[in-house]
């Protein structure tokens, strides 16, 4: 009895789940095409492909070359996740682009082993400010504005 490779198994099951969701979504479509096939045909096709690949992964779990997760530093991943979460929170709460990029920059640098948080916050702030001035001013892109941006 060969060992079952867990990553293959999980990915295979995820693909089968995705296929099921897609097929369910296609089955609940209400608009039908007058001619030929409707919008659901592509969904069913993709669902079939996903299901086939899911089965392929299940086969791979037994007979494939095993794949393994290499060493992962979860603390570093956590810092990047915190950086991205603060970005989303800052934009969602209307805190503006500059504050968002300040936090994003400082926390990401931390994930890569930097310890000087105040210095990185300052660099992130200056970078965010420069990007905001350059892109909002010169290229008239509408980056989200918050309290800091309104002072400019």
């Amino acid at each position, binding site marked *: 009895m060969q060992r079952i490779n867990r990553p293959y198994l999980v990915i295979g099951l995820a693909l089968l789940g995705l296929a099921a969701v897609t097929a369910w979504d296609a089955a609940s479509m209400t608009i039908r095409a007058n001619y030929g096939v409707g919008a659901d045909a592509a969904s069913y096709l993709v669902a079939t*492909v996903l299901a086939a690949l899911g089965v392929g992964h299940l086969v791979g779990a037994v007979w494939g070359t095993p794949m393994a997760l290499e060493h992962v*530093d979860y603390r570093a991943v956590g810092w990047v996740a915190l950086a991205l979460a603060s970005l989303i929170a800052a934009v969602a709460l209307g805190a503006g682009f500059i504050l968002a990029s300040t936090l994003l*920059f400082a926390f990401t640098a931390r994930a890569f082993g930097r310890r000087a948080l105040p210095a990185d916050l300052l660099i992130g702030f200056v970078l*965010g400010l420069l990007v905001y001035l350059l892109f909002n001013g010169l290229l008239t892109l*509408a980056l989200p504005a918050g309290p800091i941006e309104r002072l400019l």
Partner: protein
Amino acid sequence: MDALANLADGFAAALTLTNLAFAAIGVLIGTAVGVLPGIGPALTVALLLPVTFKLDPGGSLIMFAGIYYGGMYGGSTTAILLNAPGEAASVVTALEGNRMARAGRGGPALATAAIGSFVAALLATAGLAFLSPILVDVAVRFGPWDYFGLMLIAFVTVSATFGDSPLRGLTSLAIGLWLGLVGIDQLTGQARLTFGVPNLLDGIEVTTLAVGLFAIGETLHVAARHLFKPEKPIPVKGSLWMTRSDWRRSLLPWLRGTAIGFPIGALPAGGAEVPTFLSYNVERKLARHPEEFGHGAIEGVAGPEAANNAAAAGTLVPLLTLGLPTSATAAVMLAGFQQYNIQPGPLLFVQHADLVWTLVASLFIANVMLLVLNLPLVGLWVRLLAIPLPWLYAGILVFAAMGTVAANPSPVELGLLVAFGALGFLMRQFNYPIAPAIVGLILGPMADSQLRRALQMGQGDWTILFQHWSSALMIGIALVALVAPFVFRGLARMGKDED
């Protein structure tokens, strides 16, 4: 010659002072971003698309051409001086180029890469200019079934034929196809896979997927695996200029690389990796001193770099004439065109002939500008390479966020970006290729509508796909290309079992 007259018009449009400035800015920022380790040309173009949002289509296309070539060139600089190829196609350049740099010949390595890219891009862009009108003549006769067959070939070649695991490539493609379903269906107005979220009705942006998978996925990957050991770029000592013998040894590899790269890029046969490896092997076979390979042979930089650039210009042929992207970079470029409401394809040459030829002319101009600006500025690019990695990746994320919120400042869009980042991280951890997902996202809906148009014309009869010899042939080729890797793998394994 029609093409020549058209090209002359294109040059007339592109050679204004403002447009030249756009080209120069494009080349400079394209190189500056492309030179950063971990950023390949696809991500360079995706990150810099927002910069061209508000320009007029002509100006933005010209800047775009500059960014494209600049990003390509920047990638080779990173490969040579830092041994950190930003994409699969510059892996080979790193092989010999980095050895040359270590041996104190970084200058000539950069020079042969730059001049080789120039020669290759020049010839390949000329090839593009003359081949495209011919292909357009053929393409206007294509029915929807032909397009569908062609897209099937592109799907298979992008994902299955050349990766090290067809199962992984196809899975990546299927994820892209699945993401392509999300949103309102153009033909019927039916919403697919939106789960009641209004932000999803417009579908998934290609740039959001590309930036998420490449930029955020790569950042997570590098952070998680501690791949950020301080690696110093190798300083460029001595003369930048190539010696007489360097020239002699580079000239033929440039031409051979171009001859290998352009046709493979122009066929919808997937990417620039294959031609670079082919060119490397050819040069090693033909070299007068094959023993130098592995220790910094200039032929091993000149040939593959030329092949890489020729293939990149070659992928513009199916992109412009058929609207068919065959690489991640081409997929992002297509998204860029769509942003300016330009739909590449045979009709583009009829409806927006002026734009097409302006673009082709700008490719020539960007190419010349690249050579003139980049070699003298090499000191600046080396300094960019020396940015500490924590700041580099933090900065990349700031620009990724900027691009996304500039296009659509909603938390949902940022949530998608982060979700794609997590997906890209997992795909990197388990060695799933990224490019097929991006090509699948943009090509999937196109294949969907061609298939349905074909079925409408056949009144629901699926055999319409096989009633025309051209589409039957293409679907056959796609099937063979799909099955072949599995068969070869099975045969290889049987052979191993017998031993």
